[in-house]
């Protein structure tokens, strides 16, 4: 293909993006278009940014943490470019760029914060070397994606090695801790948990008595989450201890906030305004579908995205079911993963006392069967999401509601809920 001047690529790309939006299409098509006509588009556009590119990856928490990092950086006065839609692959980045660049191809931002899944991150860093990267965790995802968990760790190792300035790593994740030891120590910073909180983060290895950490000593961390009481978190950042009440439910969301704060403190260095950072943290809301709170019939309705056993376990230990009505919706579309085996790697004992009111989705019966074997009582099993959602809402007019949902189920539920309540649009 001939070389096309960049303004022309931008112009054509924007036209495709508009056309795709009119057709109600997804965010990838315009990105694909730009990728085809100018392979270098993403790299050359991002290379204009004075503070470079920040990459966020890991199995669980990418979207939420990326949103937090963006808001914290904005709170420090930076102009940030990000791939907001959560289409976390290069094409999604290209599509997001098309929305933000001027017609002359100029991106007016100080820094880019990008969420990329492990496999795409490896390709991405071959053309764009991030100045900072934040690695959250390595857990078993549905196996039809990347194969093995150890292989996923290798993908993140490549990301860490390509990072020019600093890699911020979750020291509580045995695989990440282990890969960090091979990096030059001045390039690595950690965030972590107080010993009293580690039991709230069951790892894949610890589940059945394993310990991939093999007693590796824990390095010092830039930031440590010290205590959590409901939505109030106490954490230490550098040598300062802070307590903040957050808009986030769930310990793992709060831990993601600490991850975000660690990264931002490293990016800003001496210029960090600590008080502003704490204020921004207190205002951060969860990303769509990640503990997102809606209001239906005057009661809160929470959507908790579950994509893999680690994420599901974190959700169950994070959210207390007492006083809440619970629904679970499991789809097995391609984006969810076709294999249902992962449901058997999650323990549902915590739902025993209150039971599960509604089970829905394409694989509703698989989920109900899983609950039968943990002897958790189930009210209704109905594969149709629409039917089940309305029945769930009607059955609990005076109770807060929580729905654990796989990715495509979450999208469908939000669509249906937008007919009866305010659901923020995901652009």
């Amino acid at each position, binding site marked *: 293909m001939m070389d096309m001047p960049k303004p022309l690529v931008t112009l054509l790309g924007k036209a495709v993006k508009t056309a795709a939006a009119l057709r109600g299409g997804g965010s990838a098509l315009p990105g694909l278009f730009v990728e085809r006509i100018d392979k270098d588009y993403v790299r050359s556009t991002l290379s204009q940014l004075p503070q470079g590119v920040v990459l966020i990856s890991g199995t669980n928490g990418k979207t939420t943490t990326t949103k937090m990092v963006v808001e914290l950086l904005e709170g420090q006065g930076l102009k940030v470019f990000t791939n907001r839609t959560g289409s976390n692959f290069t094409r999604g980045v290209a599509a997001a760029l098309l929305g933000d660049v001027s017609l002359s191809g100029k991106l007016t931002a100080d820094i880019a914060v990008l969420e990329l899944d492990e496999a795409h991150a490896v390709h991405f860093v071959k053309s764009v070397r991030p100045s900072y990267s934040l690695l959250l965790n390595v857990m078993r995802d549905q196996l039809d994606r990347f194969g093995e*968990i*150890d292989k996923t760790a290798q993908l993140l190792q490549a990301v860490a090695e390509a990072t020019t300035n600093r890699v911020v790593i979750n020291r509580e994740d045995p695989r990440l801790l282990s890969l960090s030891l091979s990096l030059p120590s001045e390039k690595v910073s950690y965030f972590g948990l107080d010993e009293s909180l580690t039991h709230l983060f069951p790892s894949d290895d610890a589940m059945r008595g*394993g310990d991939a950490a093999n007693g590796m000593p824990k390095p010092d961390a830039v930031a440590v989450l010290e205590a959590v009481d409901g939505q109030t978190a106490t954490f230490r950042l550098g040598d300062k201890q802070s307590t903040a009440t957050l808009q986030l439910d769930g310990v793992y969301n709060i831990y993601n906030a600490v991850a975000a704060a660690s990264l931002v403190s490293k990016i800003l260095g001496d210029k960090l305004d600590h008080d502003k950072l704490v204020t921004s943290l207190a205002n951060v809301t969860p990303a769509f579908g990640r503990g997102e709170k809606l209001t239906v019939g005057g009661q809160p309705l929470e959507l908790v995205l579950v994509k893999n056993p680690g994420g599901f376990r974190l959700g169950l230990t994070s959210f207390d079911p007492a006083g809440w009505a619970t629904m679970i919706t499991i789809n*097995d579309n391609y984006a969810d993963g076709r294999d249902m*085996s992962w449901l*058997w790697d999650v323990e549902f004992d915590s739902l025993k006392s209150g039971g599960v009111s509604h089970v829905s989705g394409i694989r509703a*019966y698989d989920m109900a*069967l*899983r609950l039968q*074997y943990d002897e958790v009582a189930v009210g209704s099993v109905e594969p149709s999401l629409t039917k089940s959602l309305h029945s769930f809402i009607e059955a609990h007019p005076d109770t807060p509601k929580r729905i654990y949902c796989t990715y495509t189920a979450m999208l469908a539920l939000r669509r249906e809920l937008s007919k009866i309540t305010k659901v923020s649009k995901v652009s």
Partner: protein
Amino acid sequence: MKNELHILQLYPRDMNIYGDWGNVLTVMRRAEWHGFTPVLHEYNPGDAFPEYIDIVIGGGGQDAGQDVIQTDLLKISPKLHELANSDTPMLLICGLYQLFGRFFKTKDGHEIKGIGIFDLETHGGPERMIGNIVTSSDEFGEIIGYENHSGQTFLGESAISLGKVIKGAGNNGQDEYEGARYRHVIGSYLHGSLLPKNPVMADWLIEKAAIKKFGEFTPQQIDDRLALAARKVALSRPR
């Protein structure tokens, strides 16, 4: 207690992936529902091998997991042969199914020795065989699960397959066989988890164990409507 059934999970630390726990849980619960007291023994490398075992269950692992357990598996091989030859029911999925065969030869020619309870061999293949799978077995009817493996397994002359592939790849994607049988030992590539959606197989393991130990088995009525409904949906899903 006189109605105890002792269930051994082989290598839960290193060979326990993609729902292997579901098989252990299903046998434990159904044994209970049939009136037995299940006792779980977890065996990891270097542990003392339990003196009395009624059912053995093992799963798959990552390459690293297989390396860790390899030597230990060869060490306890005589015990496992003795149990298999005295008609102890066993279920081995994926990684341990392969290592219950004669050997696994990886793509780069490295050979991992198996314990040879099954007359079969496995060769690292060029691509992963992934997706929903349905097989047919004379003894268990339609077996429904999910496969994910790159090893291609070929049965030797004395080996018997578990089922014939109706949809999916099976042992090697070529000869339409899936899994293997030897006395009361079942080997299979099927995750899913296998036993929850194939309760007939779970009950068969329990029945064989009960008859061997107590001389009789009186099954209780178990409500398997959810399993039946889940099977029906699984059959209708794309590969």
